[in-house]
């Protein structure tokens, strides 16, 4: 079995007549971290629901590892890491209990954990660095720890396709980097990671593939080809706020000292003609050093 995810001409309509996705097609190969980018209501969550088999397309098809969504569900191939807001954090379960839920599909009728289940849970907890918190009630965790628990559940499930919904909301920078490192190691094992996000600045840092959606798939392909100013303008259709430094009131006489504050999200910076200035922190630092040298000369 080679892992792959393939949507061909998928159209999804809800019983109330609303067409959430029309003629959406994209392909992801084994060992990919893909960003699913689009505004609210663009069909990101509908696409997730379709991949998990909660809603059936009225036309078109989805193939997971060469089989149907239903077959993938039986094999527990698709794991879902929910948005923080979707979870009832007051629910009386511990970190261990939640990660063990990832094993339920592999257990017998009575869901009694065997040695293998416990080993997988321990291993998953260790991998996300949450072993010492295993007896905490889930509401007693920080934002980043909460995310890691549900990632551990996806690992315990041994999901080969992992869907993450807004993984960086309410997460501090250190945890964000830890999660990104983990996602990269999962990619290197050949899994497919699909991340739904509207945090554009973080996309170039950890994704190698981008699927742009706006009621359909506008573009899908390698980051360099798809994540362009033109495409993003099409996907966000004027919803995106833009700040043009060249027309800023602060010009040369201030030595171009401009401070830009955003609340939580990292800004996405395009250079002239819409090329990406840098992908992550390291590249940014290199760029800054280079510029300093240039000025020095």
């Amino acid at each position, binding site marked *: 079995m080679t892992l792959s995810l393939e949507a061909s001409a998928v159209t999804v309509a809800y019983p109330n007549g609303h067409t959430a996705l029309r003629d959406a097609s994209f392909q992801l190969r084994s060992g990919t971290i893909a960003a699913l980018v689009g505004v609210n209501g663009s069909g990101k969550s509908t696409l997730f629901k379709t991949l*998990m088999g909660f809603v059936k397309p009225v036309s078109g098809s989805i193939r997971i590892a060469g089989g149907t969504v239903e077959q993938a*569900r039986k094999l*527990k191939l*698709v794991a879902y890491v929910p948005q923080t807001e979707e979870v009832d954090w007051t*629910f*009386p*379960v511990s970190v261990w209990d939640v990660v063990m*839920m990832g094993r*339920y*599909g592999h257990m017998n009728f009575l869901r009694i954990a065997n040695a293998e289940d416990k080993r997988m849970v321990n291993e998953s907890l260790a991998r996300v660095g949450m072993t010492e918190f295993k007896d905490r009630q889930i509401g007693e965790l920080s934002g980043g720890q909460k995310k890691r628990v549900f990632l551990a559940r996806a690992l315990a499930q041994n999901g080969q396709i992992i869907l993450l919904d807004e993984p960086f909301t309410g997460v501090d920078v250190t945890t964000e980097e830890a999660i990104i490192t983990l996602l990269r190691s999962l990619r290197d094992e050949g899994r497919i990671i699909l991340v739904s996000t509207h945090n554009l600045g973080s996309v170039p840092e950890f994704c190698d593939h981008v699927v742009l959606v706006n009621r359909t798939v506008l573009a899908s392909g390698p980051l360099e080809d798809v994540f362009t100013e033109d495409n993003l303008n099409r996907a966000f259709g004027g919803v995106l706020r833009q700040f043009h430094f060249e027309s800023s009131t602060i010009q040369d006489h201030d030595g171009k000292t401009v401070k830009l504050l955003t609340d939580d999200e990292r800004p996405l910076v395009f250079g002239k003609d819409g090329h990406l200035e840098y992908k992550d922190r390291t590249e940014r630092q290199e760029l800054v050093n280079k510029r300093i040298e240039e000025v020095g000369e």
Partner: protein
Amino acid sequence: MNWLAPLQYPFMVEALLVSALVGTVCAVFSCYLILKGWSLMGDAISHAVLPGIVIAYMLGLPLAVGAFAAGLLCALSVGWIKSSTRIKEDTVMGIVFTGMFALGLVLFTKVQTDAHLNHILFGNILGIEREDMIQTLIASAATLIIILLKRKDLMLFCFDVAHARAIGLNTALLHYLLLALLSSTIVASMQAVGIILVVAMLVTPGCTARLLTDRFDRMLLIATASSVLACCLGVYASFFLNAATGACIVLAQAAMFAGAMLWKNMRSPRAQAGT
């Protein structure tokens, strides 16, 4: 006053045993009901069973069968109306259960007045008839066995439906199973406290336990202990107070909850101030 006097009467001993069993079923189920957020559904279904009971009585069927069918009908029609209109679920429930309860009351006056049906509204565990007791025992045992066998699946269903589905559980089936268990729990407890007060049995033990623990397994145990204690206390107190047994049981449940709340507030004043 002789404190052991009630135990000299076989009907009291029977009532204590039956109410302890009913209390156990209700306690276990209440943990799922409150975590799923279905308390209002519990109230709705408990009222909606009335027409089913009256019709079953008129047809000479076991009352439990009519009650169970009417409870399920209420749940299914709420789901159907919600999905085919834009009305919110709690509003739909308000319409469906009052409608069905009113139908039950109208049917009730049409059939010949019989104390038997009155017992359904307010409970009559001290004078429970053999046939009703057997129905109560069967409903209790069946409900309890099914919940305990499927307790982990039901817990996951209450916690995270999306994950339950993703790992291959049949969530539609679990949804209807939980509704069916709700109806059968109501059937089991209506002889003890009557359908008007059944909702107290369906939510209070779970809430009491939830105050005292944040682990699900312990919550099941604490709920069961508090509910069995409340049921026995209620039956016992009603003997001396000469008051309605169902009401006494529900009062004891409420007292348990109040006690748990007091105990918790005294134990962690800082935690209370912090939230």
